[in-house]
């Protein structure tokens, strides 16, 4: 058990910054998820911690010890790889026991630990098999088992679920969360899947282009994304974005997009006065756009006229693909909604839940204004 710290970590491959000045403090027993699109530097950051990559500059600490020059075998970490990286010539038992044998743990202790881990993971009956005789899900468990038996200070997971089918992924996700509860050890988990991040993490670090975008709890990331990238990355379907202009009319702040105008409620208007007259990006999540007939009580709603482009019935909800002016967006509405393709309809934006981003500060990734 140990904390982990990234202090001003830079990792360059040639002239390319894979990780650019990363600063994260991960508490002991925390479940931190590094999330971001392919090539965002999350795996490189993990590999720097594992000792499989040398950092170009900065420091990586496990506990209080700077481990920059400590070889992987002495860092007391265990890692589950995306491909599982099981030793193909060894049985499941030997795969799990390998690390312990190298550390000269007594034989009966190895046996006890391997059997205990196998029991936790439900793979006792597979111990004599070779990896090629296992299914993807079973291999994944063996890979996790190999990490567990080591009883390391820190567990590292590099996209461990991406080779599993959708159903197994959901199941294993829950099992990894349970495992974290049970082992009470620091988990650092890399994924590109924001659902995995949201469901498992104590905190999430969102990365893009080697730069840490935001580090917060899943709920805070969802409710108050710090910039356009985080807002768009966290949540599925993604947040809708509209290029718009902020105007003042009759002492009210109005967001004017191409196909609609909505009023900002007075109690939320304060931070946005400096943006009056400027180009902004207006963001609203699909679930904050409602069918006016089934509007939740007590919200500030602003009606918008839209044309229904596509409807997708999900059973418990309906996804509406809407068009207002030049803007297309998605609404996630009550399943009782009866809109047909081509209908001109009214939808209600929940104006308690909008986001505004200021492109004048950073055109590529505008920060949120609150």
């Amino acid at each position, binding site marked *: 058990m140990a904390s982990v710290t990234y202090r001003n970590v830079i990792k360059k491959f040639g002239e390319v910054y894979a990780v650019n000045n990363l600063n994260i403090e991960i508490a002991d027993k925390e479940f931190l998820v590094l999330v971001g699109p392919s090539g965002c530097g999350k795996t490189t950051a993990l590999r720097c911690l594992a*000792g499989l990559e040398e950092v170009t500059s900065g420091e990586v600490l496990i506990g209080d010890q700077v481990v920059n020059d400590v070889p992987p075998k002495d860092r007391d970490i265990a*890692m589950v790889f995306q491909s599982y*990286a099981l030793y*193909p010539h060894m049985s499941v038992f030997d795969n799990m026991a*390998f690390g312990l044998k190298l550390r000269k743990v007594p034989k009966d202790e190895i046996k006890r630990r391997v059997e205990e881990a196998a029991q936790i993971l439900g793979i006792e009956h597979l111990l004599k098999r070779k990896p090629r005789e296992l299914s993807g899900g079973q291999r994944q468990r063996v890979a996790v088992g*190999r990490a567990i038996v080591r009883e390391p200070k820190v567990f590292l997971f590099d996209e461990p679920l991406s080779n599993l089918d959708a159903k197994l992924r959901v199941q294993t996700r829950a099992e990894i969360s349970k495992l974290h509860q049970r082992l009470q050890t620091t988990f650092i988990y890399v994924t590109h899947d924001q659902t995995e991040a949201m469901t498992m993490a104590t905190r999430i670090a969102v990365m893009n282009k080697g730069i840490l975008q935001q580090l917060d709890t899943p709920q805070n990331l969802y409710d108050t994304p710090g910039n356009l990238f985080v807002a768009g990355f966290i949540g599925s379907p993604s947040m809708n974005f509209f290029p718009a202009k902020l105007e003042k009319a009759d002492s009210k702040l109005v967001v004017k997009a191409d196909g609609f105008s909505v009023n900002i409620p007075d109690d939320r208007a304060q931070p946005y006065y400096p943006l009056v007259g400027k180009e902004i990006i207006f963001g609203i999540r699909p679930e904050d756009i409602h069918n006016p007939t089934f509007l939740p009580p007590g919200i500030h709603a602003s009606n918008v006229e839209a044309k229904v482009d596509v409807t997708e019935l999900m059973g418990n909800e309906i996804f509406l693909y809407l068009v207002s002016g030049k803007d297309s967006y998605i609404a996630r509405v009550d399943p009782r909604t009866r809109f047909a393709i081509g209908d001109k309809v009214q939808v209600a934006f929940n104006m308690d839940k909008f986001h505004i981003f200021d492109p004048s500060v950073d055109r590529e990734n505008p920060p949120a204004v609150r």
Partner: protein
Amino acid sequence: MGIHPASIRTSRGGGAADSARRSDSLLTVILFLLPSLALFLIFVVYPILQSVYYSFFNWKGFGPAVDFVALNNYRRILTDRVFLIALKNGLIIIALSLGIQLPLALGIALMVRRDLPGRAFFRTIFFMPYVFSEVMAAIMWLGLYNADPQRGLINALLVLIPGAKPQAWLGDTRLVMPCIFVVLTWKYFGFYMLLFMTGLQNIPAELEEAARIDGANRRQLFQYITLPLLGSTIRISAYMSVLGSLQQFILVWVMTHGGPVNASEVMATYMYRFGFVRFQLGYGSAVAIVMFLICLIFSLVYQRLAPQADYLGAY
């Protein structure tokens, strides 16, 4: 698309149509196989059978073989001191190849795999001897081994050392086999290095990373991960090396003709001497058959003993 009545399988009559179709496709298979089968029979099987036939005769290569000697040729081979020297030399070459040449090739493959400066250059240099023709390599080494320090580089360097005398490298019965083995190693280890490099490339980097995290140092990584996963490559290399050693001919023939006093005789030079120099084709054929049987038995034993995984792919 409609269904042709004939293609509907019924309980009656369908079986006959089915077997007719099957014999049709069998005929197609045979027709397509015939050309290569004919080539195989004419150029591989027939000469072997012919050699077997001649090996029972004391045939000089002219006219029909009439002087039937039954197994006498074989009896003579197995009691001929020179053949036994040739056999022993073959075994020495095998032992040295497996003990020195392959480990050297593996070591260098491991070295040039790492991020060594100029590794592409070294890789090319090490592989280059394999590209040379064997005759060219033999002539080149004849020059290097020349007993006259004025003409042979090795002796020219040797005489620079105070007290050292030039050696008749290829003329000394004790030195000739080690000298030939040096040339064999120089010529072929690049090929095995390439095989090993391919084998190493097939080992996923993540396996070695996992082992490093599991606590393996360099030696343990090699011993427990790299070496076992290279198993099939090593076995194939050893197999090819043994067969190559048993059939070694050109380098030895060009450099020494099997001499001096048969000291560097190998089975192929022995066979060639009787078959094509002394024109004892019956006896030469018997030698060829003995060589063939040794290689065949080795191959069969290897295939019997090699783990199935070698044929299925290890991962």
